[in-house]
């Protein structure tokens, strides 16, 4: 299995598989969030279940592993690609009309990581982390944290910008993952492109509902 790390297509396969894993996680996370709009009790029940239990911790570790692999390989591939491009730059730049997201996946990824750090600080640190280390102020019912955070419009704005970066990242990432797996061709390209846009939009809208809903709600209180 050495070829997985040793060949360009092998490294791309790792990007593809880890990317698909993270997309599936996003779909799960977005679905979980939506329960808060309908019932605080249901949401808090999920939060409780995903606290410092052995299966939630195992899941968190696997998930963190997925992120680390995806980011580490993105960095490795980007460095290799910069080396392959060479030091001499074109004076007339590159005028090829490629999609903006396709050219800026790594930069979009960095924005997403930045958003992720804010997000972990806002929620995960106060919930699972504090509970694990038996720190003071561990919150097991997440609904309060969410409602407090999004009653500050600035946080809603930060989260919406973060979601926009994820949207751009996914519009290229979804079909690209299939292309790397070899599941593409003249017939499938337009289909996969459409599916990419749909998946990216579903994920963005589902995540955006909670901050928008609670910001508006706080304004009327």
């Amino acid at each position, binding site marked *: 299995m050495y070829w997985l790390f040793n060949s360009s297509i092998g490294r791309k396969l790792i990007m593809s598989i880890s990317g698909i894993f993270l997309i599936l996680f996003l779909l799960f996370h977005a679905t979980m969030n939506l329960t808060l709009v309908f019932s605080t009790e249901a949401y808090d029940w999920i939060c409780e279940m995903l606290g410092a239990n052995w299966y939630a911790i195992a899941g968190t570790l696997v998930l963190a592993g997925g992120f680390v692999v995806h980011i580490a390989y993105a960095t490795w591939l980007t460095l290799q690609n910069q*080396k392959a491009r060479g030091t001499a730059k074109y*004076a007339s730049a590159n005028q090829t009309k490629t999609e903006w997201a396709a050219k800026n996946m790594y930069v979009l990824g960095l924005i997403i990581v930045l958003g992720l750090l804010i997000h972990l600080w806002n929620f995960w640190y106060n919930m699972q982390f504090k509970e694990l280390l038996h720190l003071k102020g561990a919150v097991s019912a997440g609904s309060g944290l969410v409602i407090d955070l999004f009653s500050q419009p600035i946080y809603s704005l930060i989260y919406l910008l973060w979601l926009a970066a994820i949207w751009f990242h996914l519009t290229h990432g979804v079909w690209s993952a299939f292309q790397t797996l070899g599941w593409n061709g003249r017939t499938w390209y337009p289909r996969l492109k459409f599916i990419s846009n749909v998946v990216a939009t579903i994920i963005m809208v589902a995540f955006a509902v909670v901050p928008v809903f609670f910001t508006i709600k706080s304004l009327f209180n």
Partner: protein
Amino acid sequence: MEKIINITVKVWRQKGPKAKGGFESHKLNGISGDTSFLEMLDILNEQIVSEGKEPIAFDNDCREGICGMCSLYVNGHPHGPDNLITTCQLHMRHFKDGETITVEPWRSAAFPVIRDLMVDRQAFDKIIQAGGYTSVNTGGVPDANAIPISKIDADEAMDSASCIGCGACVATCKNGSAMLFVSAKVSQLALLPQGKIEAKARAKAMVAKMDELGFGNCTNTRACEMECPKGVSISNIARLNRQFLTAKFSD
């Protein structure tokens, strides 16, 4: 009505592979719109020679868009601003009067500059040598059409085979990746019964050589197929990925 333009050509000059290069500007007057880009460079070279200076070195051969020898990165595009043509088929009518035209060599770590606008594209030959062929017994000549091939496969193989190996894909790719070239060369054989027999070994050997020669990793930006003078599609890249992965997993 014939279009006559006066232009400034900003061209890359470099004495040798190790020498430090730089841009040089030349004014060129009275160029007809019917002049091809390479003819324009010929006229410019006559002018430079008459001034007693060294002419600009650039690659060219057939000048009818089939040999893949001409290169040139013109105003931000490999093979210039027109679509589906090589530099030799680019005509001066695509440029405005008074325009400054920037002409650069292909830029990529795997394509070092030899002189001026000429780059070393032997890396492509090495990839072909690694597996871009079929091993055949050279016995008696078989009958044509003795092996049935579907029209769909024949057409697809022919489209892949239209790649002339010019290197525009590498020149435009932000990753310096040669995946479009390699995938076209793998596909043109793998789609046909004669080439299927060695398909797995071929995909592995050619990808290994491509990686070894320092080409980058494909990130599916599609710049290559947009700039390809022959319109080779990235569906070839998907096919190469598929073949490489099945070959590796079946080992």
